[in-house]
């Protein structure tokens, strides 16, 4: 036994004599494991759907070849968009299966302007691959002006800078939301334990400044930032915290079902249909909510037949004017500037089910379908999207703030 080995033993023991407390590592691990399982199941489901599609396509190809005595046309990959002034913007029905040779090829589109994420690497729109070493399983990633916000495995929110370096910006929590311009972040702080605390700060470069906080009831989580205020949800409903009021005093609104984000200084949401309303629908009504002193209030509401409960989260365009709703093989684009006055909006139909979507800008929605990427404009024009060869099915779109 050498003296150096003894010195190492002493050094190691001395370095870890004081261990910082870690908040609920078991709970964090369980949450992350569940999120990872869900993600794996979704990928497995996609693979199964793809396999079924290939088998069905193969059978059709064989039948067609046998029946006509010639080779069938190659399978086209897109469907046409619906006209912008389509009356009665109802739920998008799954279009009946058509012989593939009859479907027109989509106009070729330009390159994808959004980043992609596969759980461990960000593939930037300009083609760079940026690995994130310490990412939490199942985390979402948000593009902000100076990089990408994500949750680390230690339940802190970190920033991956454009140079590929990950930095701790001072966000001591994992449930975060970003303002539409990417300059403000709200999150649930991990400490102090036993006292749920909501924080709001300016995100400047790679650090947060002007942090303000308030205690909140257990089970509260931030869902959006609207006009400088933090929309929050709990089992009691939805509410908001105005940081100028210092302390959050709950006035939960239990009629609000879901909040999607900001349009002007109002919150875009779905609310329970008015019970006596003749045009009320089980899916709820689309509403614009004002954030007044005593809680959330409807300012505009429409219960026209919009299928608000798609199989994916509805996504707002960067300015909040357009709300995209995925249903089967279609995406509805609801124009919030007119929908409360008259039936309006557009729909795009794709050759296969929508699996993910995000807005590039206020005029272009990018959709990942089980058979490829498509771009849908607010004029209901569907085009293909050029993606790099690395952008396989397992990549998800990264939404952009700011």
């Amino acid at each position, binding site marked *: 036994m050498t003296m150096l080995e003894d010195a190492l033993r002493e050094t190691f023991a001395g370095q870890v004599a004081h261990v910082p407390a*870690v908040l609920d590592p078991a709970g964090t691990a369980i949450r992350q*494991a569940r999120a990872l399982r869900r993600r794996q199941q979704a990928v497995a489901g996609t693979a199964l759907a793809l396999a079924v599609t290939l088998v069905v396509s193969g059978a059709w190809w064989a039948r067609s070849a046998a029946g006509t005595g010639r080779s069938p046309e190659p399978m086209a990959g897109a469907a046409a968009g619906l006209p912008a002034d389509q009356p009665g913007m109802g739920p998008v029905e799954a279009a009946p299966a058509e012989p593939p040779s009859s479907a027109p090829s989509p106009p070729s589109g330009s390159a994808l302007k959004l980043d992609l994420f596969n759980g461990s690497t960000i593939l930037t729109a300009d083609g760079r691959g940026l690995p994130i070493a310490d990412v939490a399983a199942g985390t979402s990633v948000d593009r902000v002006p100076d990089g990408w916000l994500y949750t680390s*495995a230690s339940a802190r929110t970190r920033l991956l800078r454009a140079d590929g370096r990950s930095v701790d910006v001072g966000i001591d929590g994992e449930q975060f939301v970003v303002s539409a311009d990417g300059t403000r972040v709200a999150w649930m702080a991990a400490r102090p334990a036993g006292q749920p605390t909501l924080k709001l700060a300016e995100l400047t470069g790679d650090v947060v400044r002007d942090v303000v906080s308030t205690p909140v009831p257990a089970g509260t989580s931030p869902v959006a930032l609207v006009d400088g205020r933090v929309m929050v949800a709990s089992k009691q409903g939805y509410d908001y915290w105005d940081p100028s009021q210092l302390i959050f005093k709950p006035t939960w609104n239990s009629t609000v079902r879901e909040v999607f984000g900001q349009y002007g200084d109002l919150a875009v949401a779905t609310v329970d249909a008015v019970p006596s309303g003749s045009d009320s629908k089980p899916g709820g009504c689309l509403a614009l909510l004002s954030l007044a002193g005593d809680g959330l209030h409807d300012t505009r509401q429409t219960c026209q037949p919009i299928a608000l409960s798609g199989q994916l989260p509805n996504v707002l365009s960067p300015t909040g004017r357009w709300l995209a709703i995925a249903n089967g093989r279609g995406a509805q684009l609801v124009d919030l500037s007119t929908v409360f006055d008259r039936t309006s909006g557009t729909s795009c139909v794709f050759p296969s089910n929508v699996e993910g979507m995000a807005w590039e800008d206020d005029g272009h929605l990018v959709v990942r379908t089980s058979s490829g990427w498509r771009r849908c404009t607010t004029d209901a024009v569907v085009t293909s999207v050029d993606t790099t060869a690395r952008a396989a099915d397992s990549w998800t779109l990264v939404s952009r703030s700011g």
Partner: protein
Amino acid sequence: VAQTGNKLEDEFRDFVAARSTALLRTAYLLSGDWGAAEDLLQIALTKTYLAWRRLGRIEAVEPYARRVLVNVATSWWRRRWHGERPTAVLPEQAVADGLDARLERDALWRRVKELPARQRAVLVLRFFEDLSEVDTAALLGVSVGTVKSQCARALATLRGRLGEDGIEPAARRGDIAAAVRGGRGTEMQ
């Protein structure tokens, strides 16, 4: 099914409550940074929870978690940025006599953190975890010869660098022959 899930979750929570501090210590020694250590711990615990049912026996759980910790730490280190790291405390400067044990330990720790990840992992497992060479090799998935050579090489590097620091601890009188013998082992991947 729900009861089985709850039982599994309770067992996992008991395991974490009992062993997470020890695992965090190891993670810190492997990474040299408490923030990174917490990340390592969470990754190891998440993977352990996912594998819990498959592991079956509670005795198999901790070695599995430790193996994940070490493997992630060593593969992680290769990918991480190695530039400047913020520190809350400025490194202490050596005083004139240079023999203070505390300063020697600080210098030694700085030099340990400069070692390649695999070599550091071997030192941590051998001299902190007190694992035998056989157990260290099993945990790392390498041969005993590789453990010996990596350990000897790490010790030789430390001796040389401490000498460059002008520190002449008793450590430098160590068994140089061990380094020579270990040098014949198989290289780690």
